[in-house]
């Protein structure tokens, strides 16, 4: 597995990706968010179904919002507020408030699935175009040397993957969301998250390379 691109072209490609994603979908790139959407796909589908009637009929959404307002504050209070607004002229409504109520665009979980599958296709394409595809059942000589071979190595990967999955959800983002999208805008929480993740990974890597995986 050779490096095919010089570092700066990698930076450029990652930057085009982050900025393009934001420009196209009006939300910051974040891969751990995509994982959450896929793992909770049932939830996603249920929300999509529940929203569908409100999407096709904005008046329905407006009525539902009014019903919820009445349920919360009581019919009398709402009637009084409306009457007060009518009699005094009230606060002038903004142009936005006169628009029909609208739900924000929703990206279906299948689009996130497409995203993740195509990351794998990208890896496949790189191998096919450079060093060729050589199936292997470990992560290379160094990983085997550090973590042993065979079943133990695979279990290490499973536990490590669990930490990556759980940790990124708990931290609210990963190398793309906190890193590429957050750190570049100097968001304090993102700088902290990436600093801590890098720091911990450095400490663990140094520990493992000096003392072997038994230190864990």
């Amino acid at each position, binding site marked *: 597995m050779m490096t095919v691109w010089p*570092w700066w072209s*990698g930076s450029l*490609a990652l*930057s085009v*990706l*982050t900025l393009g994603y934001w420009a196209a*979908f009006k*939300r*910051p790139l*974040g891969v*751990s*968010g995509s*994982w*959450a*959407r896929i793992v909770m796909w049932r939830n996603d589908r249920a929300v999509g179904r529940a929203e569908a009637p409100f*999407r096709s009929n904005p008046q329905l959404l407006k009525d539902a919002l009014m019903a919820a307002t009445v349920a919360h504050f009581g019919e009398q209070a709402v009637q009084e507020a409306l009457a007060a607004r009518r009699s005094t002229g009230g606060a002038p409504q903004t142009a936005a408030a006169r628009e029909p109520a609208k739900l924000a665009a929703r*990206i279906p979980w299948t689009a996130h699935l497409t*995203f*993740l599958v*195509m*990351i*794998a*296709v*990208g*890896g*496949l394409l*790189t*191998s096919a175009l450079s060093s060729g595809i050589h199936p*292997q059942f470990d*992560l*290379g*000589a*160094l990983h085997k040397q550090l973590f042993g071979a065979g079943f133990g190595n695979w*279990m290490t*990967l499973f*536990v*490590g*993957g669990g*930490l*990556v*999955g*759980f*940790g990124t*959800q*708990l*931290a*609210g*983002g*990963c190398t*793309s969301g*906190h890193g590429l999208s957050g750190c*570049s805008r100097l968001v*304090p*929480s993102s700088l902290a*998250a990436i600093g*801590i993740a890098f720091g*911990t*990974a450095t400490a*663990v890597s*140094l520990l493992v390379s000096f003392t072997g995986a038994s230190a864990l």
Partner: protein
Amino acid sequence: MKSDSLKQHLGFALFGLLMGLTLAATGFTDFAKVHAMFTFHSFTLLAVFVGALVLNGVGFAVLARGKKIPQKPFSKGLVPGSVLFGVGWAITGACPAVVLAQLGQAQFAAVFTLGGILTGVWVYRRLAAGGLNLDTGVCGEEA
């Protein structure tokens, strides 16, 4: 509505492909290179990442002038979550995108990393849904 969905899928496919190509072509999918970054033996991957941050910083400053981009909150889970992620990253060489590019490159051991990630995300979401009040609003997800 139908064509919106098609556009979203095509757009996500394109960005996914670009991400997979980049991660594999720069060496982020190579455990030895990731380990070399974390043990200060090579600064190539770090240069890729920091270079991208600088370009993004300039890009966001120009493209998003006067617009508000949501910032992630400083949640309770941020520190412990990042520590766990760091440990996992050091021993698998993978972050949540890299694992897929590794699989695409026929590094089949990454199947176990993938299984771990799916399990970890699922366990977290169960605990969060079960009332453990740690939910942070993960990246890319609408509130």
